[in-house]
């Protein structure tokens, strides 16, 4: 299989950090929107 260039360790670290941050943001938005509806 053709080798493709891979993200550098630094890019990988930053990507995981961004992914986790965005995931947490989505979950918090979900919970906050329900809590707002609860009053």
């Amino acid at each position, binding site marked *: *299989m*053709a080798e*493709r260039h891979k993200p550098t360790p630094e890019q990988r670290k930053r*990507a995981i950090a961004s992914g986790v941050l965005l995931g947490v943001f989505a979950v918090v*938005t979900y919970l906050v929107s*329900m809590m707002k509806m609860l009053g």
Partner: protein
Amino acid sequence: MSATTHAPAHGHAHDDHHAHPTGLKRWLFTTNHKDIGTLYLWFSFVMFLMGGVMALLIRAELFQPGLQFVKPEFFNSLTTVHGLVMVFGAIMPAWVGFANWLIPMQIGAADMAFPRMNNWSFYLVVPAAILLVASFFVPGGAAASGWTLYPPLIIQQGISIDMTILAVHILGASSIMGSINIITTILNLRAPGMTLMKMPLFVWTWLITAYLLIAVMPVLAGAVTMLLTDRHFGTSFFNAAGGGDPTMFMHIFWFFGHPEVYIMILPAFGVVSAILPAFARKPLFGYASMVYATASIAILSFIVWGHHMFTVGMPAAGNLFFMYATMLIAVPTGVKVFNWIATMWQGSMTFETPMLFAIGFICLFTIGGFSGLVLAITPVDITLHNTYYVVAHFHYVLVSGALFSIFAGIYFWLPKFTGKMYHEGLGKLHFWLSLIGFNIAFFPQHFLGLAGMPRRIPDYALQFAEWNMWSSVGAFIFGFSQLLFLYNVIECIRSSRKAPDNPWEVQDSLEWTHLPSPAPYHSFETAPVVK
């Protein structure tokens, strides 16, 4: 200004002498962005055909007054599931398909940031679609509340509602995972020299779309979770019988629903901004203003939801705020239309199929935008609310807006996807039949709405008969002309018309300047350098 790249190096991988997984295993376990893009695109086309069949059943019933083919309850299910399937099953997955195919190639990345999550995002969409369509076959029939899932109807119906709510949850999770992947890829995996303001506009529009998705999908998920607890766990968040507030659901739904419209239309702006310069043989006019206009539209989309519910009795100050905020969106949208026209101005234009669909998009989407401005005026909206004028408006935005640009994008990038050229004559026939069929189907609906015909009814008063007949004839022309598109794509894949690496002579996008046609399984052996 978008990226100016150095001459094509041999930075791409030729996969003709390299193996990659084949057969069912390849498609089930693939983590390759092009494979997943292809899966999304075919899936969305299948869902488009299913939603299309529902639309044709609706139009067959409405061909003349009286009840012809379907019972009123089934008619309501058809309008509901048609909307859900087209929004969540056809248009959104089509754009995710484009995003998967194009974003890594356009920013010079090897693949998406999280390839396994990418696979999972796609394979979540499939069971959700099955749940939606299968809900027709359970006792009580499919959801009949309209795609907005308003209580109290949604609280009263049978098990199909639970299936719909589960489907919406799954689709939301898939969209959020896809958005995380797209944002992370764009922000972290761009090739050296590819600054944000050198990215192709399609990448920009998807970056902003992904932020919209991540901000509003969890809100919809929260609302439908609470619907579920109202149905099964004795709560009364939205159930007036138990002291709840159905209007609150409408506020929450449209806080999601209006940005959702832009989720479906912003990537279309990106596609059209790629196609017009190619066929006008001029750089895109006003690149930076296009970026800022896209961001402005996205931000404004969060503060206009009330215009969907002027009739619920909001305070006058609220109505005024939502009216003016909605009208404000015309400013950045106008900037975009101006820039597209300026791009074509004095260009050496040719009118291949992608260009025809892109110009069709500009003309018809602008009509949809203008009828949106009419509906933004509170007193006018109170008269036109829930009439066919609204149906005409959003079909001009979503069919001639989103769908036409999906067709434009498919024809434009098909040589890169397949390595073959589509049949130009068939493509042009597809365009003209779609254009004529679409306008015959939906333009008369403006007249019907102005005359007071309500939406979501299987029968109507005699004075609406003539325009309804025309509308149904147009819908069938439009519907069957899509089979031409299917034939053209399959014929293209099977044909022997080899496509050049850069058939449209695009100078500013890596997929055309740095990669052969078809794009190899793995795009770049070494990261391209953008000057």
